[in-house]
């Protein structure tokens, strides 16, 4: 069985165009939504800092931990603020990104670029289970 609307040819063409644009746009919209959700659902895992973390700068998984003597602990995401390289080494008193050579101080600020933004500080909470701390991205 077929069902034909009594439409003229140009009208039919126009309608077909509108329909395909509408379908295409909805699909694109859905794709964007899917990608967005995917992006949002992936936030970095918290890092557990052991109670005996040594003084000075240390890298623990995805965090750069700075401890001044026995004093308080600070942590930054071990992710370069330039283009996201994982920082996996400490050079003396400075934190150096291996990819394009950005350097940061122990307080997270930039010594030399290309990075322009300081390292991103992580939130530190005591971890009663280990006696150490947990560093996580601040919301």
């Amino acid at each position, binding site marked *: 069985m077929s069902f034909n609307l009594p439409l003229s040819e140009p009208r039919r063409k126009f309608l077909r165009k509108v329909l395909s644009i509408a379908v295409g746009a909805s699909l694109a919209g859905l794709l*964007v939504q899917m*990608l*967005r959700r*995917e*992006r949002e*659902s*992936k936030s970095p895992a918290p890092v557990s800092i052991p*109670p*005996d*973390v*040594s*003084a*000075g*700068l*240390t*890298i623990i998984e995805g965090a750069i931990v700075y401890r001044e003597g*026995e004093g308080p602990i600070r942590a930054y995401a071990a*992710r370069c603020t*330039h*283009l*996201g*390289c*994982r920082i*996996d*080494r*400490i*050079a*003396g*008193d400075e934190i*150096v*990104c*291996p*990819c*394009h*050579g950005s350097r940061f101080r122990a307080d997270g600020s930039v010594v030399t*670029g*290309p*990075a*322009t933004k300081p390292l991103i500080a992580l939130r530190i909470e005591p971890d009663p289970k280990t006696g150490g701390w947990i560093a996580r991205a601040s919301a």
Partner: protein
Amino acid sequence: MVITRWGTLGDLATAAFVVAVVSGVAVAVPYESANAYGSLAAILLGNPAAVFFRNLHYWSAQACLVLTLAHVWDRLRAPAEQRIPRGIWLRLAITLPVLLFLMLSGFLLRGDADARQALRIVTEAIAQVPLVGPLAATFAFGAAERLDLVYVQHAATATIVVWLFVVEHARRLWPKPAAIGVVTLVAGALSLFLSPGLHDGSDPVVKGPWYFLGLQEILHWTPWPLVAVLGGVAVVALLYGLRAMRPDRAMKAKGALLVLLAAYGALCAVGAFLRGANWELAPGLPTGAGNPIAGFVFAAKPELPVPLPVAMGRPEGCLVCHRGVTGLGDAHRPEAVGCASCHGGDTLALDKARAHARMVAIPGNLSTAMASCGQGACHAAIVPRVERSLMATMSGIVGIDRMVFGEATPGEALKPVHVKDLGQTPADSHLRQLCALCHLGAAKDKFGPNDEGRRGGGCNACHLAYDAKALEALDRYEREKKQGTAQAPTAHPALSLDIGNGQCFSCHSRSGRIATSYEGWHELHEPPAGTKDLAGLSPERYRIVEEDRVFERVKPDIHHERGLDCIDCHTSIEIMGDGRTHARKRDQLRVGCTDCHAPAGKRLASMPASSLDPESKRILAQRKWSGPAAERHGMTAGGDALVNVVVDSTGKPAMVRKRAGDRRELKPTARVCVEGRGHERLSCGSCHTAWAPRCNSCHTAYDPAGKGFDFLTNADVKGEWVEKLGPFVADLPTLGVRGLPAVDGKARESVDTFVPGMIMTLDIPSMGGKPAQSVFRRLYAHLEPHTTRREARTCKSCHNDPVALGYGRGELRYERGTGGGRWRFVPAGPILADGLPADAWTGFLGTRTGMLSTREDVRPFSVDEQRRILLVGACLTCHEERSAVMRDSVRDFASLLARRSPKCVLPAGSPGAATGAGSRP
């Protein structure tokens, strides 16, 4: 148009693409995207045929990129763009970035250290494009560094797109067989011998694929990464726009594109040949782990164990050949940390030459320690501390030498300096030839334990310990090496906290000689009279060390007698430094006698075990002493933990010997040490030092014609420093005054032990330096001789002794006269030009000014102090040391003096006496 025997450049490019696709399908079998690095490592180690296909995939892909660029250029020259329909031209322009994506995603699929960083960079760079960026990045690479998605986009999406567009453009499904044949042959030949490596993360150099090194360089220079991304988009847009341009404009635009391409190529070369770790300049050939490695793919392989050995979470080929290596100790077992984490080399090659290229045979030297011992997962916090510590910098020695040579003011000599920065002035060349071997930065370049002839070696200087097995294995290895049959030994020296005195001995048997003195050996200036052969000397009485130095047995330190090692007192933070640069040794020292021996009547300071700092806790866990864990540990005056000083619930302290694990009771000081105020300022060593090595004079000259050796560069140099030493004696030290750090703003001083530090003539004219006359220096040095004894030196040995008082050897006599007593001093040796005996620090009842010591905060006794000491000395000329009178004198000398008998004859002019004054001879 370029037409080769096998077709056009376009044909060849398409052929390379097809070869890449087909070989890619083959490698897909052993490759696992979820375990990219591991599966590729397994291929490299044990599947030569798969290596071949992987190489073919790689080389045909590189060929495809290069040929495509060449083809594009070839056709643009024609100009052919006008002949291509607009839709196809658009798709061709899009093909270029898609092809680049195909190449890049192939690189990312390595999953090695370079690839993981590259994945982060591209994702972030694309995400920075406003609006569409984040979503495009997620679409292409996923949101969480997922290689499975990259794999799909690489093997399916991008491949299909490129193939479709190329087929549409070339109007044929398959390239010419001849083109496929030649590409297969050339890429195949390369594949037999050149395998792209994998970066295991130990090499600090991080680089992208060669065609992106220019981009990496651009990203290094600009703070706006978007510039690079949009630049790429602009190039593609320009390419597409060519078709719509007027021919003359199009020609200009093509010229510009060519210039851009050339400039970009140059930047790639900069990235490849000039950049090193942290993108710093380091010119050299690209030899990093990720670069292609030469070696025949089907070279004979040893039998592979299944599963492959894994260390530090990655397959480690070293362990295939070096099986059963023992001796390293728990923390550094090869099964846990592998070989390469210390020694470097290629963990994914099984043929020796390749595996051992870039290997560090002796790791631990400070020049490379950050990449081995100090790498992220290991001792990253300690190595920088050691680099700044005094045993590495020699700061005090350098500063003082320069001061003595007149090249630095005392103020300048107090600034931290580093031995590695020595220049070529007379003082610095003197240091290079006579001192620069004894520091941790001196490279260890031979196997075997350190000794007096082999010093330095960074971490190894202390932590590498050869036991009998390791020594025997090394011996065999060196013998067999000469015959060309050597197998690497399986008995490895230990890397541990088991640091014996021998380690310290290699450097500290010199200069102040604390290591030899501690064990009761005194160096003789020359062998005992009549010695024909050193080997004939009795080993009970004499000890011969490197360079035929002869030591004679004298009294050892009581702590040595009780079995204590250097590390039983000296803590890790003191030895390896606290992370700060210090100018002088005294600034780095942190332990003292009373940290273990509580002052009589007081409790030893201690802290609960729970408050130990992290390093001490780790050390404690490593030591594995038997018995219950201590509840409290001792601490230094500065608050450092003493892990091996343990305090029980009754407050009784004991020392655990760090290496042996057994205990020694720790006694408080004697009561007399804290009684009265007479000896309040005395350091423990002032009384308890049994002897100190003294060398009373020397002469230092420079022989411009001689042949010297520069220990800093390890090279022969023209001109030699010659030291002529005076005789050495083992004698009680001289006493003097040392400034202590102020407490509550109050300056403090202590009486301490001194020896002649530099009583010497510097023959400056012989160095061609200024001034044109020899310089005479009379400097005493503060020394803790490490010859502590339970029994103290006698009262007379201080109060009535010219050496103790700094006058030098001679006769110190007390003469009683009518107006009171007089002390007289007759020196034993000749008087030098400065009016003092050769071995004196100060004049008899006199003062000295100017350069007195190797330190600015010490001095000989002032005239007033000398008088007060000699006043007691006068009493001692009649009263026995142990008499009640002398005992009382320690408690309260003033009241004793007030109660003195009329028979007492005090030195004239002394406090409490009526008249007169001491006189000089």
